[in-house]
């Protein structure tokens, strides 16, 4: 699995960091960082949920 984020669209809402905190992180600069571009195990499903619930649909998952 490969996780990508369209940073022109990402509004740093933090929805993904709540769902998959080991995959996504918002740092104190207010910007989103991808911690695991190729999540494995339980984080795969969490990354899918995060992509589904992203308010701006900025996350793409390639299986």
């Amino acid at each position: 699995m490969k996780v990508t984020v369209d940073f022109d669209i990402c509004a740093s809402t933090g929805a993904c960091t709540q769902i998959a905190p080991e995959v996504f992180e918002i740092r104190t600069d207010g910007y989103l960082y991808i911690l695991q571009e190729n999540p494995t195990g339980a984080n795969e499903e969490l990354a899918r949920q995060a992509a589904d619930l992203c308010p701006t649909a900025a996350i793409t998952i390639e299986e």
Partner: protein
Amino acid sequence: MATPVADIQLPSIPVLLDQSRSERLALLRETAADSWLARNEIGYSVLTYESVMGILRDKRWHSATGLVAQMQGISDDAFLSRRRVSILNAEGEVHVRLRRLVAPAFSPRSADRLRPFMRQTVNELFDAVAHTGKAEIVRDVCEPYPIPIICELLGAPKEDWKLFSRLATDVLRIFGGNLAEEFPLIVAAQQELETYTEGLIADRRSQPADDLITDLIAAEESGDKLNTEELTMMVEAVIVGGTDTTRNQLGLAIALFAEHPEQWEILRNDLSLVPRAVEEVMRFSGAVSGTIRFASEDIEYNGVLFPKGTFMSTSMSTGNFDASVFPTPNVFDITREPVGQPHLSLGAGIHYCLGASLARAELQEAFSVLAERMPNLSLNGVVEYKPTGVGIFGPSSLPVSFSAQ
């Protein structure tokens, strides 16, 4: 099998008109200690952090913000037929499309670009009172603060600030709880705003500028664009979401700091705490204490069946005091370590506040300017609060004193 919600014994949360905000919060938090769910006058309320998150993240619960007028008994056809799909209440593909088209304009990067203008705005507003050592800070700073920023963001010229401020105030009366009486005023303001916005859009189509309206006109994805009606709706959504929220949250913040001078001193001595302070203020005393959803189908949650059409309030003001998430929730502490779970005041799920980066930037800039310029902040009279209606809460009058510099 889930139990139908109507068959369950639940505490109820009465609405008492003479209840103060602190009395109501105390009652809500007492109820939340025993039950995640309660009955209210329109349906039910979820009260704990987990259940508020659970409802807001579940796409089967739809936004009810488009139904505020109907819930207050307005049945005027002309008014209701004007209500179109707005980003505030759209769902599914329609909502995703709108959010994707407008998201770049609300990115942290876009908000950061406005920071110098935010600082300048707070500084100019504060200049008028700085030498006196006294201010009615709601009137002098908080109320006017968001208007120039929203105008700058949209691209409305300075000479329109006053007009804009009036229209924003009147449009927002829809959340004021006195809808029957103010209805004609609200409709007139909405129409005036629409005409005004259409004018701005026409201007920018012929003369693009570095502003949100130009960005929104240009916003395009796979040939998909916002039409004029959608652009007008977005501008109205920006005003609804971006003015009263910010001014009331700033007012609540200054009231809190005036009541907790030791926290103000900690902040003044270490401005790197500003981002944390903003989050703690929003957790401890959020301007938005709840929102409303309705069940788009029969929904089972936590072993309870909520029939289609059920109205559900999600109580941020109790979820933000959930001791299982925030240790010692009753303590206002700007040095609080982040717990990895955000406060609920900006919402959650697909309707999470689009303007969150902008709101945070506005509050952060205001905190750092005011912390430097208002040593020895204290209350200089009685804080008066707006009525606790369905909408946004904050002080209506906040007299403070400080050491003049």
